[in-house]
């Protein structure tokens, strides 16, 4: 066994352990030197990225991997926690680590003039570790623990600008909503444990009988995780927290939100996979029911997100409502693929949804980074207060145009690739839904063109004569995201073939997920 094999074997544990180790080290290191602290944070993310790359090459080539904590082999009652890494997890952790790297590069200049930065970097590393843990774990209670870590850490980071009362309010709202949600998840886990005496996702998926209690568990899990992902009737925390968190952190919080979305996928496709594939036995097929409920909520999300974005005056809140609409597109694709399970366009919808997950993170992230750059340069949040910035901030303007076109789904950029897949598949399910989605997308373009005109063009305000371009690290971060967006827009097939298609296949193939654990005994 070579060293490389050994590293790959232990990679799932190390991917979570290294950021945690870095977070524990951070209070000690930041007493020494400030620059050392930033370099430590960046190098830890790079190391994590290296392990993710190692693991990804192996998993994509050879199928799912297991990692059992505290024992070499699986034993019959699954008492130990285990990580199960399939292509879907690989897809998610890749997105998370890319977002984390960009956010840290951006933070280098953006956060320079603030105090409390040692705590900031500690919390950022903890948030990254918890997001990675949520995406790798194969144990429901472990998932809950990581969800709680991400909830606590996000709350603390949202309140980072403590001198603003709104930030405190947003953080309080966030922690109330998400801790109650997490307690409901714990209740659901208790119900599962009471019936089957297991906490392992694969074991539970195998023995799940779909009793009445299981239906309650399904509803609790999907509702709470959907809330954490920002689905509409429970979206009210999202604009506040996205709009008030430091923009560099918003990028990582988007990653944590997407991890909740991943939780929804895991619950529906893997935990209830057996139920879903036998759905036709019931009088009202469960997949049609769940799928159409998700589609309805998704359409409401899109419409509410766009309409609320129309009336916002605060740039970051406006982008946050656009994020709600984007989450709606993802749920629309997922709902379609569940409702039309088995038909050929279900796969297209699932792939479109997953690709849109990546694109949503990049596009909304790019817009938040640009909004952060404007805030950094002008210290103003409201759209009425900023005007004519294109004269002094040329690169930022270009990046905003890229983000605008990508969010609206215009052809040469990444948003088009995924939205086209979604429209195509949704049209086959129901044409009206597709038309509503396209109309909302066009409305989104109109909103952002209005924002572009207000913020970048227009008369130059007297206070902004000596506004400078954003510092180099912020431009580098925005450039990285914009480059990725253009790359995916030009060559969507590369990303679809290497990452999205294996992820969609792994998600649908719940039998493989179960047999990796059960067959390994």
């Amino acid at each position, binding site marked *: 066994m070579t060293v490389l094999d050994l590293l790959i074997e232990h990679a799932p544990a190390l991917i979570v352990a290294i950021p945690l180790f870095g977070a524990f080290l951070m209070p000690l290191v930041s007493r020494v030197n400030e620059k050392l602290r930033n370099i430590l944070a960046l190098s830890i993310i790079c190391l994590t990225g290296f392990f993710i790359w190692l693991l990804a090459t192996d998993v994509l080539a050879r199928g799912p991997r297991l990692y059992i904590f505290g024992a070499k082999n699986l034993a019959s009652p699954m008492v130990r926690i285990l990580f199960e890494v399939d292509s879907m997890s690989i897809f998610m952790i890749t997105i998370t680590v890319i977002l984390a790297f960009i956010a840290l590069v951006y933070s280098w200049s953006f956060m320079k003039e603030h105090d409390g930065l040692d705590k900031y970097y500690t919390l950022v590393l903890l948030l990254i570790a918890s997001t990675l843990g949520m995406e790798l774990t194969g144990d429901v209670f472990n998932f809950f623990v990581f969800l709680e870590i991400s909830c606590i850490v996000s709350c603390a980071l949202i309140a980072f600008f403590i001198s603003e009362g709104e930030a405190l309010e947003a953080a*309080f*709202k966030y922690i109330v909503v998400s801790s109650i949600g997490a307690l409901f998840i714990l209740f659901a886990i208790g119900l599962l*444990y009471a019936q089957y005496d297991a906490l392992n996702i694969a074991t539970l998926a195998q023995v799940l009988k779909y009793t009445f209690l299981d239906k309650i568990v399904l509803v609790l899990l999907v509702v709470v995780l959907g809330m954490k992902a920002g689905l509409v009737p429970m979206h009210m925390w999202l604009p506040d927290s996205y709009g008030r968190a430091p923009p560099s952190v918003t990028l990582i919080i988007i990653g944590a939100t997407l991890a909740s979305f991943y939780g929804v996928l895991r619950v529906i496709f893997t935990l209830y996979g057996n139920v879903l594939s036998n759905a036709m036995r019931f009088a009202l097929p469960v997949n049609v029911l769940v799928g159409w409920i998700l589609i309805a909520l998704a359409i409401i999300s899109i419409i509410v997100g766009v309409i609320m974005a129309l009336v916002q005056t605060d740039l970051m809140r406006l982008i946050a409502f656009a994020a709600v609409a984007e989450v709606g597109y993802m749920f629309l694709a997922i709902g379609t693929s569940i409702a039309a399970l088995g038909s050929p366009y279900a796969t297209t919808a699932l792939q479109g949804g997953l690709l849109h997950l990546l694109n949503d993170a990049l596009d909304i992230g790019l817009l938040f980074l640009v909004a952060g750059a404007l805030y950094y340069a002008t210290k103003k949040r409201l759209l009425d207060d900023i005007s004519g910035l294109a004269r002094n901030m040329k690169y930022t303007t270009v990046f905003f145009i890229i983000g605008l076109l990508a969010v609206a789904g215009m052809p040469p950029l990444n948003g088009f690739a995924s939205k086209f897949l979604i429209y195509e598949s949704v049209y086959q399910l129901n044409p009206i839904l597709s038309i509503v989605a396209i109309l909302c997308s066009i409305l989104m373009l109109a909103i952002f063109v209005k924002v572009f005109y207000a913020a970048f063009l227009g008369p130059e305000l007297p206070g902004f004569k000596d506004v400078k371009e954003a510092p180099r690290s912020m431009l580098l971060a925005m450039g990285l995201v914009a480059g990725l967006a253009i790359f995916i827009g030009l060559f969507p097939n590369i990303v679809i073939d290497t990452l999205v298609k294996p992820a969609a296949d792994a998600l649908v193939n719940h039998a493989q997920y179960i047999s990796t654990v059960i067959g390994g005994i």
Partner: protein
Amino acid sequence: MIEYIPFIAVVGMIFIGLYAVLFRRNLIKIVIGISVIESGVNLFLITLGYRDSGVAPIYTSLPAGTPSPQGMVLPVPQALTLTSIVIGVAVLALMLSLVMHIYRKYGTLDIRKIRRLKE
């Protein structure tokens, strides 16, 4: 019915907490409500793990004549509850420090008076 009374107590606690969170306007009362919900869920987990006339699953000076697995309560729910309690402490600490800051800033704990963020 009689054997479901502990579960009824659990649901009662969750309802009391939910009532406080949803209908009270005072930040401290909302925090108390969340704590009560959490106690309810912890009680639920512990209740799931009880076996009739079971003792704690510890072998040190075990009462003589205890049948080995059947006479002990289940250990896993207790471990889960332990984790959940610690999580509760962390959430409580963070929420209370936010409430302290909000009180210093606005001089009131009434959510109707401090709601600056629009719906």
